[in-house]
């Protein structure tokens, strides 16, 4: 359970993995995962392979990350969402705000 961040300096990419329920309890950890990276150049991958559930506050956290990278949909990629999680992302039309898949 929790959020882990792995930094790939070569690709200037940060991979944030969320494990378990992605909800308000992850708020701080998720923010910690990207706040020290450069918002201007770093690419982010949010790996939801192990996320079992995602609620509206998690959507809010993703929107904060989107704001952090200057609302460029190509700079945040959301991967590995299971069926339930993907449905929530789809309903919120996040495929237009992020790169999903």
């Amino acid at each position: 359970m929790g959020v882990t961040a792995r930094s790939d300096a070569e690709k200037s990419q940060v991979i944030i993995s969320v494990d378990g329920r992605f909800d308000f309890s992850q708020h701080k950890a998720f923010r910690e995962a990207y706040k020290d990276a450069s918002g201007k150049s770093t690419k982010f991958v949010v790996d939801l392979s192990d996320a079992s559930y995602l609620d509206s506050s998690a959507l809010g956290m993703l929107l904060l990350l989107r704001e952090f990278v200057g609302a460029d949909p190509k700079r945040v990629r959301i991967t590995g969402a299971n069926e339930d999680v993907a449905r929530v992302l789809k309903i919120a039309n996040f495929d237009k705000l992020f790169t999903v898949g």
Partner: protein
Amino acid sequence: MQSSIAHCCSAEEARPDPPSVQVAGWRGKALAVDGDPGNLLLLQRMLERMGFAVGTAGNGLEALAQFAALRPDLVVLDVVIPGIDGMEAGRRIRSMSEGDFVPIIFLTSLADEASMMDCIRAGGDDFLTKPLSFKLLQARVMITERFRDLQRTMAASSEPLAELLEREQSEQRLAERVFSRAINSRNVETQAIALMQCSAATFNGDLVLTQGLPDGGLRILMADITGHGLGAAIGALPVAEAFHAMTLKGVEDLQVLEEVNCKLYAILPSDRFMAASMVSICGNGRRLTWWNGGMPSGWLRSRGGLTELASHASPLGVLPQLMPSDAPRVLSVQDDDGLLLLSDGVIEAVDADGVAFGDGRLSQHLQVWPHGGPVFGDLRAAWERHCGSAALVDDAALLELAIGPSPLDSAALEVGRAWRGGWRWSVELGSDQAEGLFPLKTALAPLGLLDGLDRQAEVLEEILSQLCEQHGGSMRRSGNPAVSARHGGSLKVLIQFDPLPHGGRFVIQASGRLSADAWRSGRSCSGPANGLAGGLEAFCHSVRYDADKGMIEAHYLW
């Protein structure tokens, strides 16, 4: 008790205690309890030397009485005392001290482990074995004082917390009150809508707004603002304001959504937004405009089957502007079609075992939803059975709209609040008197009703004349002389004027006692498609028909 009698201890032990041994009782009050007068005096002196004002008691009952009278900061209690024994006295003192922590030190000559444990179980905080040593007593007193101070600090810091919690709760209740008044008071009442709203927090993050359109149509907004309580309320109020005001003026769906989006984008932080679905049914009940940004699919039950109104747009408040693909969509609807809207709280609500209601159960109900019939009652009952006594995690809202020719029934219109400066005028005439209605201004002008409406007066005249013609026409076209007989020649006319912020609205009704059969046959060959009502609909915002009441109603806006 508070006298500072010269002590009888050795010079070494007489070293004064800082900071001010001179002031008797600077350290607080102590209660000394011992059955032996000599020991009691010794104990008293020692405590006084430490800076306590000392009260004494020689037996259990006396100890309890002294404790109640003195409310001391420390109790030193011999286990072996006459009457109620020391353990029992300790227990009672503990229960008398309520929330405040008063350290109890037991004195015992029985230095075995069993009596130690008994002392602690009886509510003692420490114990000392006799004969008493001043140094040891002093050390124990200091330790218990440290505990007492810690406990007092904690109690003092939790007090504001409890106060804060209480204040927060009362503000939540206030917000809910203000909110539900500000919003619910403006929703329209119509039997066409069945609605269920359940709230997880005191304040409901789910919003359901309804408002009549100037053409007699109806607009519904179901929304879910992220979060609960005050946070959600902050966004809800401006949304409700914009929705009601703009809908009353007949502003198009897209513009209302753009305005709401703009407002929310400006006031909400980046991680907050509002998922919403909005549906408008136009006055003649033939056209449904829908928009879904982030809500679960709505459903339209028409004769041909089910249509899914799936989310096609981003929630509101996320982007500075709506994307072009986010535009509302239009569907044709007919009488007896039904609309179902729901929030995700309905699907995600879990039972006692943590199992969600789920799309599957919803789908079962949708499959058996009959055209022209309700689904709401059974669905709601099933949902409530599912949730049982399990606590609601998220807000839930469920709404069904029965689509008909007049979503806002005339009853709603008749009791509707007229804008300030508006009026309503009605007359009932025999058929041979209908001609006498014209020119209308001879009736209305003397009452001052047309003041400032010079230009609109002519249009009003024209609309009414066409309405009466159509009303009569539909009767004639029934081709049944009996209809005219049953009709009895009665014509009822109602005119309502509502000043709007930038213009105004006329609602003009013509009705008569006409059988529903005659009306339907009349209507079937006099619909707009046949051109008969075409003239009216060309310049009226809407024209609608109510077969049961034998009524034609036109809305004209400027």
